[in-house]
């Protein structure tokens, strides 16, 4: 009744191409933006920022990045943790070497550096496909973590081997370091997420997105109709690296404050982001958000229920978390291999017809 398209005709290709062709969706999107930018900063507190909002924003950026590489272009990567580390350490080196420059630019530059590194590690994709590529990206994961642990230049020769984010401000408000306010860190990350999402949406709706999807669906046919596989695959790695690098930089500088390559950016990170896009939906920007929200909220919810409500010891709850995450992944794969995004699409289809069944 409310989700109606009747009378909503598109008279130009521009209109047909827009992100939210249905009016209801568009208005809902504006409301979400208004709440995100205008309401939450006033209501947010440290606990919610750290437990949910900051990781959700940051992982969403990483998920968008990995989704472009794996979901749109079909190149499976298990190196996300390592690439986030590149972003983090690049940001750290830039922050400490150029303290006068605003951190906003350091984060973007970290993204750029990660794009280059990711592209380099993407070169084997020209010869290696599918599983083999996934396993090859493990080389990137393990090598990068080892590199950041061993070569002390990366952590400025500190004795602890850790990198610590010095305090930096944007328009006079601290966004890194110990004196930050929740709303400031939240807005800082939100801005990056908004920019990333818009860029990702633009790239995937145009010819670049089609080239990536063509490579994913049938790379030989794609090449025969004119897609240059080298350029297509490497551009996917580059764009993906850019987003993942930004995510890693924010994860270290704004969220964690201090990091150590093995602990913060190990193989578990790579799996986590991969689960996010699988559960959320491969090849879907919305899916990246959904998956990130799901996997960030789940342990928080489980802890609330298990420890706070039932009073179980934390290690049992940790074990149960593993069981539930594992089971959920399997259930999702069986019931809806295309993820939450597909469930959402099906729900919308039903909504468009409601109250009619078909």
């Amino acid at each position, binding site marked *: 009744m409310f989700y109606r398209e009747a009378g909503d005709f598109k008279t130009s290709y521009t209109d047909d*191409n827009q992100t939210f062709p249905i009016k209801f969706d568009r208005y809902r999107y504006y409301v979400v933006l208004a709440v995100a930018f205008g309401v939450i900063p006033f209501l947010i507190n440290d606990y919610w920022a750290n437990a949910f909002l900051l990781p959700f924003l940051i992982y969403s950026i990483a998920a968008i990045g990995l989704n472009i590489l794996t979901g749109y272009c079909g190149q499976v990567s298990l190196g996300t943790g390592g690439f986030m580390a590149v972003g983090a350490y690049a940001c750290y080196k830039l922050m400490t070497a150029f303290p006068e420059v605003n951190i906003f630019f350091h984060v973007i530059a970290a993204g750029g550096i990660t794009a280059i590194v990711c592209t380099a590690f993407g070169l084997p994709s020209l010869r290696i496909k599918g599983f083999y590529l996934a396993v090859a990206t493990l080389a990137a994961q393990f090598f990068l973590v080892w590199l950041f642990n061993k070569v002390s230049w990366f952590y400025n020769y500190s004795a602890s081997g850790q990198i610590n984010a010095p305090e930096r401000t944007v328009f006079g408000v601290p966004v890194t370091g110990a004196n930050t306010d929740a709303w400031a860190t939240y807005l800082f990350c939100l801005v990056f997420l908004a920019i990333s999402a818009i860029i990702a949406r633009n790239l995937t709706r145009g010819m670049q997105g*089609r080239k990536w999807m063509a490579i994913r669906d049938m790379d030989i046919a794609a090449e025969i109709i004119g897609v240059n596989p080298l350029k297509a695959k490497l551009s996917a790695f580059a764009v993906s690296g850019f987003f993942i690098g930004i995510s890693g930089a924010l994860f270290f500088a704004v969220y964690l404050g201090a990091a150590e390559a093995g602990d913060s950016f190990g193989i578990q990170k790579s799996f986590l982001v991969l689960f996010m896009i699988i559960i959320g939906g491969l090849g879907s920007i919305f899916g990246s958000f959904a998956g990130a929200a799901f996997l960030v909220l789940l342990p928080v919810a489980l802890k609330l229920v298990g420890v706070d409500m039932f009073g179980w010891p934390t290690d049992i709850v940790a074990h149960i978390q593993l069981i539930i995450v594992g089971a959920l992944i399997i259930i999702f794969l069986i019931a809806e291999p295309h993820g939450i995004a597909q469930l959402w699409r099906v729900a919308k289809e039903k909504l468009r017809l409601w109250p009619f069944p078909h």
Partner: protein
Amino acid sequence: MLDSTVSYVTEDGRTIGGVVMEMKNITLRFGGVVAIKDISFDIREGEIRAIIGPNGAGKSSMLNVISGFYVPQDGEVLFHGKPRPQMKPYEVAQQGIARTFQNIALFEGMTVLDNVMTGRLNKMNSGLLAQAIWRGKAEQEEIENREKAEKIIDFLEIQHIRKTPVARLPYGLKKRVELARALVSEPSILLLDEPMAGMNVEEKEDMSRFILDVNDEFGTTIALIEHDMGVVMDLSDRIVVMDYGKKIGDGTPSDIRNNQAVIDAYLGVAHD
């Protein structure tokens, strides 16, 4: 024998030009198997050239040689009179050669419209940055190419399914979408690999009409592999017949119809 450098006009008013592509002594081997043995023939501009023969004769391989996917061990491919240097398949596409595939090679994760639009990729060259910003150059280009794609969609009568994911379409419609994708790149040469395979009579009539319209309206040179002899005899200007990797016939439909070697190897009884 018509002089292959002189244009002529057919009975139904189409203009056939000079030779646009020539295969000279092509030999293609896969390990120990010789797929194509010393075959030579030419294709004239604006004509419809059929390649026929029993299964396993090497027809698809021949098409793959023409499209640059396979590189022959011997012989050369001349394009507009000049030997074509060895190129990557995607470079061949840029030369204006488009094709369809025997087993349908559509991109199943995308809609019909997206699939057709991929055919325009060589005409669109906004860079990564422009596309990331979208407003302005990239959007402009997208709209312009969308208009061209819609013309072909109109031509092939697939407007009603343009937003349908290709995976959901029946076989006949998939083949039409593939043809659209090939056409939308405004090719000078169109290669069709068994475009009628698996179709019923009605669908074949539609597809034949489309092929003739393409040739008529756009002047596209067409080379096609096909098994339906009725279609072949009706559509083609000239025919090449292959058997076991060798050429056993080359001429107009009436020549081929009465060619004893072809009858023995393939046609069976003299076709009326």
